[in-house]
């Protein structure tokens, strides 16, 4: 088959169809651009509405919480005290210490004073004074205390001998360290 259309017309036809294609591309590109913009704007608008309702929900929850402000502050104080309780526990069991002194005292020894003192800078010490008729019992008391928990570092400070009606009495004082429970 022979194409009798002159080459000039054929060329013009080709240019026209190319123009259509390029124009179509421009239209499609413009449409995509506008649609994208419209889509973004619509999405942003719906998001704004959604944010508004979320904010309203949050405000409602906060208002509800504020209604119970008193109970919340009470709970906060309880929680604070529960958390800090460990810091206020005594490091020493004083009953145990006094009971240990009593159970370590020989039967022929009478204590005249027990003084326990402590401060934050050093561990507490127990100063014991007493009387007995046997010097040996004082040593036994010291050794028994040294073996008993929670004591440590037992030392005799003084022993004084006195005689009344031919009966010898020994007055002593000793110091005992205490370890933490």
């Amino acid at each position: 088959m022979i194409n009798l259309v002159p080459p000039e017309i054929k060329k013009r036809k080709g240019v026209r169809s190319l123009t259509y294609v390029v124009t179509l591309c421009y239209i499609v590109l413009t449409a995509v651009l506008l649609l994208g913009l419209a889509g973004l704007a619509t999405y942003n608008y719906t998001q704004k509405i959604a944010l508004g309702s979320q904010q309203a929900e949050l405000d409602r929850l906060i208002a509800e919480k504020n209604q119970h402000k008193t109970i919340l502050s009470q709970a906060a104080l309880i929680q604070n005290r529960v958390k800090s309780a460990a810091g206020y526990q005594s490091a020493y069991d004083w009953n145990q210490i006094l009971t240990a002194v009593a159970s370590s005292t020989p039967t022929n020894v009478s204590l005249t004073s027990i003084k326990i003192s402590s401060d934050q800078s050093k561990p507490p010490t127990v100063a014991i004074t007493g009387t007995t008729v046997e010097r040996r019992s004082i040593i036994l008391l010291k050794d028994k205390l040294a073996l008993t928990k929670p004591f440590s570092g037992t030392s005799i400070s003084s022993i004084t001998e006195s005689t009344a009606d031919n009966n010898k009495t020994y007055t002593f004082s000793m110091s005992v360290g205490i370890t933490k429970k």
Partner: protein
Amino acid sequence: MHNLLTNKYFLVVTGLFLVITIGVIWLFFPPAIRLFNENKAAKLSLAEQIQTSQTDAAGVKDLVAAKTTIADLYDKASLALPSSPSADLLLLQFDGLTESLGLDATITVPFSEGSLAAQVAAPAAPASDEEIKPGSGSAGGTQPIITSSDTGTKTDWSLGGEWDYPTVLALLTKLKTFGRWNAVTSIDITAAADKSTATISGKVFWTPSSNLQFSGSAKELLTQAKTLFGSYQTYATTPDVTKEGNFGKSNPFQ
């Protein structure tokens, strides 16, 4: 294509199209995308806040359900570690404690200067210099000795009396479960032929409480608090001027 590129109308239209397109992109897209991102971040943040608030709301619901228990535990927690020295209530507590053991005790508690006049009558002025004892306002009996309060978050106290060894042990046992958290710092027991005297000294604590926020599980808190405060013993209730006392005298000196 070559012919199209040499066509000046085509070039003008294409140029115009490109300028408009770039202009539209340049002008409208950045703010739209910025708004999109901002909304996205705000939505995430709000969702998190809502979730936290919902958890809090559930916690509050549990707290409200245990309102009475919370109020009771709050009283115990406030008594154990008050926000102020609370020396007046401490005195009543010690008074109740010694009374529960039937003891005649000398109680020394710290009073702040502000509350001193309002809470406890000042002891009578000494008649002579011999009556003045260093560091004390009275001696023996149940009259409280008044000392100046400590400026820190702990204050000193002491209990003294004619007590023997078993009484001191009983008192120390009671102090372990005493409603106000305390630390014994010294014990002095002296036995003479006719009587035995003892003094127990220590500290009580207080801590300022401001901006405390509750967080976590209400049920867990209730369990822990019940276990902790359940063993503590209260020996006096806080005086309530609106509910107790008879007031009004024609002659207050009679």
